[in-house]
């Protein structure tokens, strides 16, 4: 299904993508490109970016649809919905979700959105699109590995997708896949073949991210054009650079955790298992520790949340500066705080494990390190606000989504400080408070960063604009909806409502939240519908959108807008331009903006 819709889309792209005549690509001549090499097994970073984006969008629809469907049941636990049976068949007999299938749904929802959409879909799209264009390279360091990276992601997608259709159901151990639940087939239907497929898919996914990440780092460090020193790179590139480093260093650890899990599941080893009775029978496993898995998982898991947010931070910085016609405030502080976040990201993983029985002294060390992250985060927020402060703001949809990003990041970051204190966390761990925290700070805000990026760079990708009116509706409904959905969850969490429960009706003290739950579910449906409208806008504008007539629609100083409207493989028709300044010379010396390619003038002031 993936493949079909994708090649369909790209078939369409042929009609309008006037391939820029490939003259003067020094260093390589144009061999004849077939449909297959140009649109399917393409090694052009721009095409690969689109492949990541569209695959990610398909996943986003599926993942979000799951949440809409289980929200129906959560909001209206007494009702039955025939549509659930239509979608899920035997898992929702009589229109009510089976409790064990609810686990499968939230597991898939989390896995799909965290990894397939906000990691592959986000980094994959924008790293591929922007790194060569913004640093001034003809392509990635290794275009072939780059292509492989997409196809490993595609394979991972196929395996994950197929796990949705096996008779015992998909994996249902939560997106964190904690053993022993995930390790024992007899514990849970979803822990049978579904979990093996999940692990296989994730292993392929790790390979894909590593191939991609290696390329991104090598390209950024080695392939910059003349004059593009590291400190002249747009912050987008810095964000993507640290993202890639985080991925390269943490995904392999996750992989080793998964390998041990695979052995425990299928070959009887006891890495994670000890003293377990199922169905009145003792298992032979001894000496294992499920906490070991938690360490290995969260050593990736925490950097992973920054893998998701750093690209969004980079893009938002760029878009806010361009659309307030002001230089970014505190460029070096922005880079420094990205670096600090990147280092700290490796030192705080145990804040997810405060209740795992860890030594309280260790706990307090992790509290300290965790709270330190608030400093670079606050620096970034401060700089974003000062960047737009008294700016000449153009409220394009991309700009609105960027501002929305900052708002959400503040709201969610503040609750992070609550959670980072183990004394509070011990009470609200595994409640809706955590759900609210991470959906706001990571889920929705990374989506906002991604939307901002799509609205801003759509003209570069397809030579057309997205429809603005639909963009404004998309933004306002999604922003209001996100707060309506997730804000109340804080109160539920503080009252102790646990996450991962399908039905609270016999839990009398939580019945006070019934109508709140209904409201949340209704808003979820509305937000989902509006985002489908965005998908419509995306595909409609790809073919029918307003055409781009100038090379540089946003009057932006960075390098990607010096390429032709429809850049060919190799990006610049002639030589790659040389860079003479940083990318944020806006409103300088009475000029609206000065492109990076313009040499420093004789009496130019310093920034």
């Amino acid at each position: 299904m993936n493949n079909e819709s994708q090649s369909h889309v790209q078939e369409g792209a042929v009609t309008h993508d006037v391939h820029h005549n490939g003259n003067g690509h020094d260093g390589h001549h144009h061999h004849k490109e077939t449909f297959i090499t140009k649109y399917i097994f393409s090694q052009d970073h721009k095409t690969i970016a689109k492949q990541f984006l569209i695959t990610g969008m398909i996943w986003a629809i599926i993942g979000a649809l799951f949440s809409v469907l289980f929200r129906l049941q959560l909001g209206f636990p007494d009702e039955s919905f025939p549509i659930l049976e239509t979608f899920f068949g035997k898992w929702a007999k009589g229109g009510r979700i089976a409790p064990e299938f609810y686990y499968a749904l939230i597991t898939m929802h989390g896995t799909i959105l965290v990894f397939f959409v906000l990691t592959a879909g986000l980094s994959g799209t924008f790293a591929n699109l922007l790194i060569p264009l913004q640093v001034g390279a003809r392509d990635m360091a290794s275009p072939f590995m780059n292509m492989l990276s997409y196809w490993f992601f595609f394979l991972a997608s196929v395996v994950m997708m197929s796990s949705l259709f096996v008779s015992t159901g998909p994996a249902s151990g939560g997106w964190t896949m904690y053993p022993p639940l995930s390790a024992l087939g007899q514990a849970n239907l979803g822990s049978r073949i579904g979990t093996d497929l999940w692990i296989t898919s994730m292993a392929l996914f790790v390979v894909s991210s590593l191939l991609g990440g290696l390329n991104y780092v090598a390209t950024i460090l080695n392939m910059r054009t003349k004059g593009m020193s590291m400190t002249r790179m747009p912050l987008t590139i810095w964000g993507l650079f640290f993202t890639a480093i985080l991925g390269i260093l943490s995904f392999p650890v996750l992989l080793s955790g998964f390998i041990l899990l695979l052995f425990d599941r299928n070959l009887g080893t006891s890495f994670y298992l000890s003293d377990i009775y199922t169905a009145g029978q003792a298992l032979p496993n001894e000496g294992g520790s499920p906490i070991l898995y938690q360490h290995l998982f969260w050593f990736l898991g925490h950097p992973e949340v920054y893998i998701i947010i750093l690209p969004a931070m980079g893009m938002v910085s760029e878009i806010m500066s361009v659309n307030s016609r002001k230089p970014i405030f505190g460029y070096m502080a922005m880079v420094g705080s990205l670096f600090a976040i990147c280092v700290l990201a490796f030192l705080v993983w145990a804040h997810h494990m405060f209740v795992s029985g860890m030594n309280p002294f260790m706990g307090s060390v992790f509290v300290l390190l965790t709270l330190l992250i608030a400093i670079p985060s606050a620096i970034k927020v401060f700089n974003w606000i000062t960047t737009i402060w008294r700016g000449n703001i153009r409220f394009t949809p991309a700009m609105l989504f960027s501002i929305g990003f900052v708002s959400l990041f503040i709201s969610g970051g503040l609750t992070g400080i609550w959670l980072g204190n183990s004394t509070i966390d011990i009470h609200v761990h595994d409640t809706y408070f955590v759900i609210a925290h991470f959906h706001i700070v990571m889920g929705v805000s990374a989506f906002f960063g991604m939307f901002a990026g799509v609205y801003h760079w759509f003209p570069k990708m397809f030579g057309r604009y997205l429809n603005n009116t639909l963009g404004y509706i998309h933004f306002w409904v999604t922003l209001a909806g996100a707060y309506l959905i997730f804000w109340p969850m804080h109160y539920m969490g503080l009252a102790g409502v646990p996450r991962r429960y399908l039905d609270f009706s016999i839990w009398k003290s939580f019945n006070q939240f019934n109508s709140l739950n209904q409201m949340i579910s209704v808003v979820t449906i509305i937000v989902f519908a509006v985002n489908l409208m965005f998908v419509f806008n995306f595909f409609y504008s790809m073919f029918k959108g307003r055409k781009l007539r100038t090379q540089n629609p946003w009057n932006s100083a960075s390098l990607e807008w010096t390429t032709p409207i429809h850049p060919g493989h190799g990006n610049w028709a002639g030589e790659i331009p040389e860079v003479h300044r940083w990318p944020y010379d806006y409103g300088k010396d009475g000029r609206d903006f000065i492109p990076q390619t313009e040499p420093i003038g004789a009496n130019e002031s310093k920034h």
Partner: protein
Amino acid sequence: MVSTQQRNKIHPHKFTLWIAIGSIIMMFAGLTSAYIVKSGQAGWHEVKTPMLFWYSTALLLTSSITIQAALRSFKHRSMATFRALLLATLVLGLAFVVIQYKGFLWLWDRGVHFEGSSGAGQFLYIIFGLHALHVLGGLVALVSLFIRQYIGRFRSYNVTPIEIMSTYWHFVDVLWIYLFVFFIWIG
């Protein structure tokens, strides 16, 4: 494919390899730290390290020397020596993997199995096994490098692939030494 006019300090592919090495190190760091954590807990079983692993160590060390010599002769353009040394490396690497497998069998025969309670043995199979997989990956690369010496239009003189090959090969060697010492020391 990518234009040559850009200023490259270090060849991007070489650079990519170095980062990839960092990534592989993280994977084994994860596993060996898991080992340390686990070895302090109840129900831990030690294993005896088979003699065979000493032999395989010697083989791998020798192969590091041969690939270094191969690189040297390539740089001196003595192609016949280069090919012979490449082949020697290939054979030594293959022998290493075979001996590792024999070592596993030796342990297995002495009752170190996957099933049941945890211990150094289970880690050993996985960690040494993953290392052997990395050697196998290197062997595949060696074979393709070797074949390209004879067929195809690969006649232009280019030292980069061979440098990359030798760097990777030294890396799996050093990685092995680390893992082996780790097991003898901690285990």
